[in-house]
């Protein structure tokens, strides 16, 4: 079914990093996502768009394990991750940001980022309680790495601020920095440009391009700002009412009738 929609562009290089087949999610009688399929190859930057309520964020929540799929399979690096706990999925290398920013509001910016190191902190509870050498060296190292991330995102000067006190744009950056600190292979960005002005959006697009190169990332992006999606995504998947209605390059999507129909409604003959 998936192949019948849109014109698939030539398969990009790199192995499949994420392979979703026939993903379906029911909420009671509501079919939020229906037979969703998507393959992402290593190094790609894929856009996922669609009108409000199309099921994009549900797809994200299914991939990251916040929801359990009703049917279908999600394979990450060749292994099925459907039904795993969210923290296990993160530990396997999928990080995400949230549509409405979800920082740890009453913790400092530095601690927000350092939390992402918890599962690969390199020391355990007893090292921490005994304050042994292992704790000292590992804690120092992870703190420095977290500070590196803050420096990359120009946040080093606010490291001791509480996250809740930061302006919106900086909170977005903290969230991305935090996601990157968990050392992901695949990054899911849920509307990163929401609430940003045109200048900020421009900066964000450059930032996404930069981290993708710098950390060898594969990125899946939900976005409503067409500038962002059309500007940086190589391939785009369009959803409406929980189904994929089109796939293709930005150009193909812009001229796809079903997409225009989904966004603007059907024209009167």
């Amino acid at each position: 079914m998936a192949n019948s929609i849109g014109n698939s562009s030539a398969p990009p290089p790199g192995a499949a990093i994420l392979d979703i087949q026939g993903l379906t999610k029911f909420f009671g009688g509501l079919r939020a996502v229906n037979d969703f399929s998507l393959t992402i190859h290593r190094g790609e930057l894929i856009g996922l768009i669609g009108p409000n309520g199309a099921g994009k964020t549900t797809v994200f929540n299914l991939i990251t394990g916040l929801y359990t799929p009703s049917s279908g399979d999600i394979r990450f690096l060749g292994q099925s991750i459907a039904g795993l706990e969210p923290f296990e999925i993160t530990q396997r290398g999928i990080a995400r940001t949230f549509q409405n920013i979800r920082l740890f509001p009453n913790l400092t910016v530095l601690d927000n980022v350092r939390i992402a190191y918890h599962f690969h902190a390199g020391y355990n509870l007893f090292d921490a309680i005994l304050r042994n050498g292992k704790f000292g060296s590992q804690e120092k190292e992870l703190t420095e790495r977290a500070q590196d991330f803050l420096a990359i995102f120009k946040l080093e000067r606010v490291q001791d601020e509480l996250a809740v006190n930061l302006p919106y744009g900086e909170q977005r950056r903290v969230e991305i920095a935090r996601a990157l600190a968990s050392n992901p292979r695949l990054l899911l960005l849920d509307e990163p440009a929401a609430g940003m002005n045109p200048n900020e959006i421009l900066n964000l697009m450059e930032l996404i391009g930069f981290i993708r190169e710098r950390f060898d990332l594969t990125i899946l992006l939900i976005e409503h700002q067409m500038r962002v999606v059309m500007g940086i995504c190589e391939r785009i998947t369009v959803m409406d009412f929980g189904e994929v209605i089109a796939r293709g390059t930005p150009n193909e999507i812009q001229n796809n009738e079903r997409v225009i129909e989904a966004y603007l409604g059907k024209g009167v003959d």
Partner: protein
Amino acid sequence: MELGFLLGSVVKIVAVLGWLYGLLQVMAHASRWVKIIGIIAAFGVIQIAFTLKIGDQSILNDFDAGLLFQACTMAMVALGLNLIYGFNGQFSLGQWGFYGLGAYAAAYVTYKWANDRTSSALFVLLIGVILAGATILVLRRFLSRYYNVPVLSAFTLYLLGCVAAAAVAVVAGNAIASVIDPLFGAKDAPGLLSGDLALQIVFVLAVLCAGVFAAEVSFLFGLPVLSLGSDYFGIATLGFSIVINTLMVNSDTILPFPEMKGGRGMIGIPKLTTWFWVFIFLMLVIVVMRNLIHSSAGRAILSVREDETAAKAMGIDVASNKLLTFVIGSLFAGLGGGIYAHYIGFLSPGTFSFLAGFNPLIVVVFGGLGSMTGTLAASFGWMFFLEGLLRVLLGQMGTEAPTWRFVLYPIALLLLMLLRPQGLLGKTEWGFLRAPAVKPRAPASPPPDARATPAAAAPAAK
């Protein structure tokens, strides 16, 4: 006399808070020697105040000692509760139950040792907590190999494992005791273990075992219950406190412990708690908690309070994290209970009624959720003010007047909530308890890869 007492009490409250401040400051000192000497000095100052006599009475009398010891046990219990509620965000009313559990368990061991001259209770508890702990760890490793094990199945497995461990412990403990007792003796029986030193060791072992015992019970209880939301968890823990209290009241009828004497109260517990042990155990709790909070595990604990969904997305096993916090908090309560039992020498179920169970909660809220300093200061202040100052002052106004303090302090709490909802000290920490400052990385030498940062890395900054 009244004025003198009032002044003396105020001086004592200020002094004990000053002592606490000094202790925490000196513990934060960079030099190891200053630290050690400072801690010994902090211990010694109070020890001397107990022993040094001016005229015919010591600077701190038995009444003050009682206040101080109770304040310290309250601090241990309340720190544990703050860990669970203030740092991890799980509203719990079960802390008092674990406190009682620890008190009774430790008291039973030393009671049997000192009065019945047998080591059976010690060995049963010791073997029991070790076996149950090992069982839990082994089962946990075993279960971690499987995905999506239902909580109740896991719970059943743990429960069966612990019951089996307890059964083995009862048999093995009694068997060992039947060999040890005639060979080495116990308190007052002729033999190697009859001395006071042995009794001290038994006491410390009993308190430690009681703490671990409370922690293991909290693991079994928390496993199914922590998966509930925070409010429901609060109700369930309240239920736990009531269950424990009911078991205490009926300990001689439905439980096989006639020595606990049910509702009449357990008497004859050797009074072994000295300032030395109170200080040691309080320091243990403070250091463990502080080291825990200012580590990766501590940040994970905080992140669960802040946003569970985001914590999960950061790779944190939220369920295990809550359980771990709950177990450590209960461990502190159990230790506090053991210390308390051997100070007071008499345990009555009334002490552990669920109404009294709100005391640590009040202390934690009063001091500030998520503030270790606040909890410590509030524990001392609460005990010295409420039990020390108010009780005596009101006592001089009439025999029934002290009851007024249960009207006065809820009003104080109410006012505090209205005027300072973050608690007396908010999130302020003193000295040792403060998070170690992290130096910003010198801008002169940016990390090698950060130099490649394009202008893009500064979005929205202009």
